[in-house]
């Protein structure tokens, strides 16, 4: 059977700063928290209405593309900034990069 999608929740992965892909070169290891999973359980009347109206072409083609009719699994809060020393011995700080709650 198809794997039942887990609800939207906080996940973590240990990576080096270089692996974040932000351009910093540092072998320091940090924990990256992110949000993943489905949000169907937290839909509202708004979502139902919007989904219906998109299907029944009450919205212009263009509007339709850019309107989301289901909640997204996204961070609701971010961890404090994190500082690290890069491989050129310069300190940097990254703001709002790791999720604290979803």
């Amino acid at each position, binding site marked *: 059977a198809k794997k039942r999608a887990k609800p939207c929740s906080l996940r973590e992965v240990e990576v080096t700063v270089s692996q974040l892909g*932000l351009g910093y070169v540092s072998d320091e290891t940090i924990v990256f928290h992110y949000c993943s999973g489905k949000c169907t359980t937290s839909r509202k009347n708004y979502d139902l209405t919007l989904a219906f109206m998109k299907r029944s072409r009450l919205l212009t083609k263009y509007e339709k593309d850019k309107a989301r009719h289901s909640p997204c699994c996204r961070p609701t809060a971010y961890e404090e900034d994190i500082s690290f020393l890069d491989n050129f011995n310069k300190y940097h700080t990254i703001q709002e990069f790791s999720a604290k709650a979803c």
Partner: protein
Amino acid sequence: GLYFPQRVYTESIYVGQLQGSQVLQVHSMRENPTERPYFTLCSHRDTYASWFHMDEATGVLSMNKTLEWSDFSSIRSSLVRPVKDLNLKVGVSSVPMQKALCPFLPTVEVKFMFINDTAPSCGQVELKTLCFPDKVSNPHITENRMPGALRQLRRFTHMNICPNYTISYAVEAVSPAPFAVDGSTSELVVTAPVDREESEVYHLDLVCMIRTEEKLEKFFSSLHVNIYDEDDNPPYMNGTDTEDIKIEFNRSEGTVYGTLFVYDRDTTPVYPTDLIQNKLVGTLTTNDSWIRNTTTIEHKFREEKAIFGNVRGTVHEYKLKLSQNLSVTEQRSFQLDYLVNDTTFPGPEGTVLLHFNVTILPVPIHFSNITYFFTVSLKATTYSQIGSVCVDNCLKFKGIDVTYQLEIADRNISADAQSCYWAVGLAQKPNEKTGVLYVNDTEVLRRPQCQELQYVVIAEEQQNKFQAMTQLVVIFEGEADLMRLDEQRVLPCAEKRQRGECEASRGLGAPTGRCQWRQGRDKGISKKYSTCSPDLGTCPDAYCDAIESKNISICPQDCSSQPIIGGYERDLYGIKAGHGTCYCFSGKCFCEKDELEVFPICDDVCK
């Protein structure tokens, strides 16, 4: 007066040290022939102090009692150790005195390491310990002083361990040194006054000879005698004592001019700060109040060795310093004499006289007889930089504040014609030296009569309100952009993330009407990040200039102060270095690798 040649004496003593036996000798150096040291034991409060007797004349400490095992355990010590420290204090005075005066005397620490054991027997003892203690502290003597004994070389507490051996001392030195050993007392003696400026330290080799029944053994131990300095050298100059100074464009308070060097073979201690040894004090010899209010002499000194024959000496630097801004009109010449006095040097020649020949030139505020001509493309958008205006030598000015203004040349033209002059504006950041012209309104440029504008630039020096004027002509040429009106909306170039999009759009502050793309090459975070700019000549250049600071959308790469998303480096403002492509939406900037543009932002997941 009298002084001790070392700060601390240390020696080990054992249980069984006999009453009356000598344990250590303290020395004091004399400063003049008449002086005679009287030693006293100052630690009368310590119980163990009473175990010792101080010979007032010779400085020899001997035992008042024989040391017992119980004496060792009576000494209180926070740590359980086989050795306990007995700390005594010895004072010296040039007159006999009682203990109460101790707080006012120079004193020296005497530390006995009381060992919880009897002295080793002759068979057990290492011979060298009969000669020298484990630890040797380096003595010091002051230069130019009397000869005299500075240290007892014998180890009193170990002398009688092998009564049948004879122990004698000698001193050797690689280079000639005025030191000898008194054969009868085994004291190390300095035989003549020494001059620190000749040698700061003497490296001696102490030789100890032990004659046993079968052989003669020699032991060597090195000793460094440091020579203390006193102010026995006057300051002197090497070469010129006069400095010619011309003050012209740089007239701001705090500016320093010229340098005169004064040398002194003596050291100048920076510590302790209240000690005034060898400090040079300077005085302006002129009483001209203008000179006194306007100028001062800055004096710094540093210790040098090489130029004084590898002996520490002092190099003093004297510079003329403005203590207030000079008006542009100020014009005068004067000689400023500065008397430098070595206050602690006893002799008469303790002073040198420095001469600063100062010429202050006025600074005219005028435009050399030029008319500014600027041509601007009709495609140029608002805030495009046209050029800058500046009076003669303005870039060299310091402490001279000149502001610029733009006015219509011919006041009598019609109101309609006057409205053309809205086209060009002039901006200047506080303490910036030039005025920057920029396109202020592109709408009026559509009218043919507005395409050649005659201005007058007025420069005003703020302190004296001097003014200078010159003509300025701005000619708008080429054709305007033939885009449809809705497309003519001017957007910040910085929002564009790709070359195509960038070079196709009309950006704010773009002299050509089009944004310019800069392609970065480096992999990581680099100063040469890719970005879209209105004018690569001024943006990004890590400086938020007068025009850019008028509107954050012109060049957020230089002016943004918000946190940047993605990999970046920043000094005070803007993006000093960025990762991949940097782009901004009203001051909020992102720096990320450009492959992201290929990656669809909204794939099926986000629907």
